[in-house]
């Protein structure tokens, strides 16, 4: 066992791991690392690295593969710090890997109860790092702090009772001295929240209840007691603007998903973008994309912070292609709507009004017989990453052109049980397809598209090498970011439900995508 012990204790290498807040804030200074979920706080999922570029990406080859220990969805977005990669793995594992070779440095596994309430698999989307501590949110709704050098537990706190339908699947966001984390459980009649924890002690510093309590502004948008079981989750990582000290976090659908009869009203703050103070959790503003949603169009995807000139004026914006089929650009200081435009086929709204509120068409809500609508419940896009490249000033999104037949059903609430109120099946009358689309960031105007055979469920990353990496089914590929031409592809042999990242180690640029039950890592030789 001696050699094994040595393998798992590379003290010299790991002694380097220390990521104070300032390093994440100034991530632009170290393009070779990937220090937070989207690489930096902007949510852009843009890597400035250009060793792999349009002229040589065709020579990209497998560098190493890391097999997961258990067979379940692999959605991790790795963190890479100074030669060490940190990943989460289904269902309850965190590992440190040597970023150049893929060899395992340490392994942490959490005991999980057997009666978890999970809508969508034993998935996890990654960890956060702050200082020399990793932060990991778990399927039984705990937040765990691990020593980044060894994987040993520093603290473990309960966020909520999993028996009530609560879980957590997203990567936390480390901001200054706080660890900010959301939760999942939107199909179980939970009441959603976003929490801020003291990074050192694990003590909860604040909680923002996404559904306001009785007497608070916004509670009047819920009929009766429906707010108590209205879902409104927060299961994907947000973005942060250090200049205004604002965290931007998306929220999930109201519950029950497909039957809104018992929750008349706009159902604030579901399907919204929240601007929060990371020190206190206080709300600065909100923008609701889909009032009174009955189509399960969560708006939890990571928002992207960027700047653009609109009608001659420079604007600080927060943008995203929403699951409801519309692309939105908001003023990220005021939360006011700047522009919006459908980026996929949609048949439920006549458009957006001047404030950005959708104008819903009649006869577009679920019925017992089924209501046919574009987009499907999976949305025009979904939780996975869009990307923005400062080099091209374009926003890239992996879209789904797919319709759904929405059914209304029962809404009996029982704590910890599914609370859907109906469902949806895919419409097969028109062949669905996917595409990577490049949109002008200020307007959502289509610049180009690369058509895909089927709708994808995986994210994009843009790079300084002029590339956009993406996935379709089991294929991982690279497109020319300017023109959308296919430059490289690789068949992974497993379904891809994850976002790519890129990093440098030992002088080489690597590109990473989880697929099936393995992590695939590519480099030029």
């Amino acid at each position, binding site marked *: 066992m001696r050699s094994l012990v040595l393998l798992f204790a590379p003290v010299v290498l790991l002694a380097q791991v220390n990521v104070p807040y300032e390093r994440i804030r100034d991530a632009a200074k170290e393009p070779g690392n990937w220090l937070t979920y989207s690489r930096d706080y902007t949510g852009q999922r843009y890597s400035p690295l250009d060793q792999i570029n349009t002229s040589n990406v065709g020579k990209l080859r497998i560098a190493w593969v890391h097999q997961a220990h258990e067979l379940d969805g692999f959605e991790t977005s790795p963190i890479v710090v100074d030669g060490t990669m940190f990943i989460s793995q289904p269902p309850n594992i965190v590992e440190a890997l040597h970023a150049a070779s893929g060899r395992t440095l340490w392994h942490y596994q959490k005991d999980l109860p057997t009666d978890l309430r999970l809508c*969508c698999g034993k998935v996890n989307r990654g960890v956060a790092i702050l200082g020399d501590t990793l932060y990991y949110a778990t399927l039984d709704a705990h937040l765990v702090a691990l020593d980044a050098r060894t994987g040993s537990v520093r603290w473990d706190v309960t966020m909520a009772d999993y028996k009530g339908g609560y879980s957590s699947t997203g990567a936390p966001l480390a901001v200054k001295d706080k660890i900010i984390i959301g939760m999942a459980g939107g199909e179980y009649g939970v009441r959603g929240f976003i929490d801020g924890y003291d990074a050192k002690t694990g003590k909860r510093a604040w909680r923002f209840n996404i559904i306001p309590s009785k007497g608070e502004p916004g509670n009047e948008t819920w009929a009766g007691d429906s707010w108590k079981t209205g879902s409104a989750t927060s299961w994907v990582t947000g973005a942060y603007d250090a200049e205004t000290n604002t965290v931007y976090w998306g929220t999930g659908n109201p519950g029950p998903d497909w039957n809104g009869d018992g929750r008349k009203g706009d159902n604030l703050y579901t399907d919204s973008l929240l601007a929060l103070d990371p020190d206190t959790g206080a709300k600065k503003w909100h923008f609701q994309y889909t009032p009174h949603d009955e189509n399960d169009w969560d708006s939890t995807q990571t928002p992207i912070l960027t700047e653009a000139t609109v009608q001659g004026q420079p604007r600080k914006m927060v943008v995203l292609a929403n699951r409801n089929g519309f692309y939105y650009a908001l003023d990220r200081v005021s939360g006011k709507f700047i522009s919006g435009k459908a980026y996929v086929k949609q048949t439920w709204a006549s458009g957006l009004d001047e404030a950005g509120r959708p104008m819903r068409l009649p006869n577009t809500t679920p019925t017992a017989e089924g209501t046919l609508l574009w987009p499907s419940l999976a949305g025009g896009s979904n939780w996975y990453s869009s990307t923005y490249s400062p080099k091209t000033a374009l926003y890239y999104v992996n879209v789904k052109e797919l319709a759904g037949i929405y059914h209304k059903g029962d809404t009996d609430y029982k704590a910890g049980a599914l609370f859907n109120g109906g469902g949806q099946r895919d419409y097969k009358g028109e062949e669905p397809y996917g595409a990577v689309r490049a949109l002008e960031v200020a307007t959502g105007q289509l610049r180009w598209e690369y058509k895909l055979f089927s709708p994808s469920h995986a994210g994009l990353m843009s790079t300084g090498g002029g590339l956009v990496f993406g996935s379709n089914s089991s294929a991982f590929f690279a497109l020319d970011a300017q023109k959308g031409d296919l430059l490289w592809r690789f068949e992974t042999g497993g379904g891809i439900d994850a976002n790519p990242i890129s990093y440098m180690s030992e002088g080489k640029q690597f590109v990473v995508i989880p697929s099936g039950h393995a992590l695939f890592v590519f480099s030029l030789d």
Partner: protein
Amino acid sequence: MKLAMVCLVFGAVAAAAGTEAKVKLPNSRADLARGEKLFEHHCALCHGPKGEGGRGPMLARAKLSRAPDDAALVKVIGEGIRGTEMPGGENELSDHEIRQTAAFVRSLGRVPVKPVAGNPARGAEIYRGKGNCTACHSIQGEGGVAGPDLAGIAARRSAGYLRESLVDPEAAVPEGYLLVTVVAKNGEKVTGARVNEDSFSIHVRDNSGRSHSFWKSDLAQIDKQRGKSPMPSYKSQLSEDEMTDLVAYLASLKEEK
């Protein structure tokens, strides 16, 4: 909610449910009425309004091979059956609704079933002889591969559906048998069933059973003939009695092995 993993999750939930010793189905008049309504919306398209079968197997029978007990039936309705066209209903139905639907399905089995007419032995002769069905269809490894394997077809398709397929093969082309014609840039042309396709390649099996694979970048044209079938109609080729006997033979193929 995320869509992609729903089936897996429900699998976990249903697996947990499957550990229950017994499932009790609701059996009030209101439950059965609701179950009938749900069946009408979610199941009848394939299984027929009275469970008489169609694209999906007949459910109006006392014993269901995939659902020997009520717990198994609830699981099948919730999860679907992997490797078949039967989808899981958990995305559309609550746990209670699944049980109401199951209760209605069980009630269908209490109604006497009309036997299939015709002489299966004579039908077997027509299948191998005059009908030349073996040219394209296989049963237990014997026959061609251009069309679907017919071993155990009676467990998946009703007699009515089989008759319709013989009379009008294009009334319901089975999944996985999309007829395509691909034309390569070098002029090579292949027609057959699409075996696989993604953004970059397409794979076609021609009527002789030979597989052809193409990179899409090498192709000049892909023509997808939705709703088209290479199978001829037997309406004018067989007499009414011969048709009845052939259906009787196919309806006797209940075991896959």
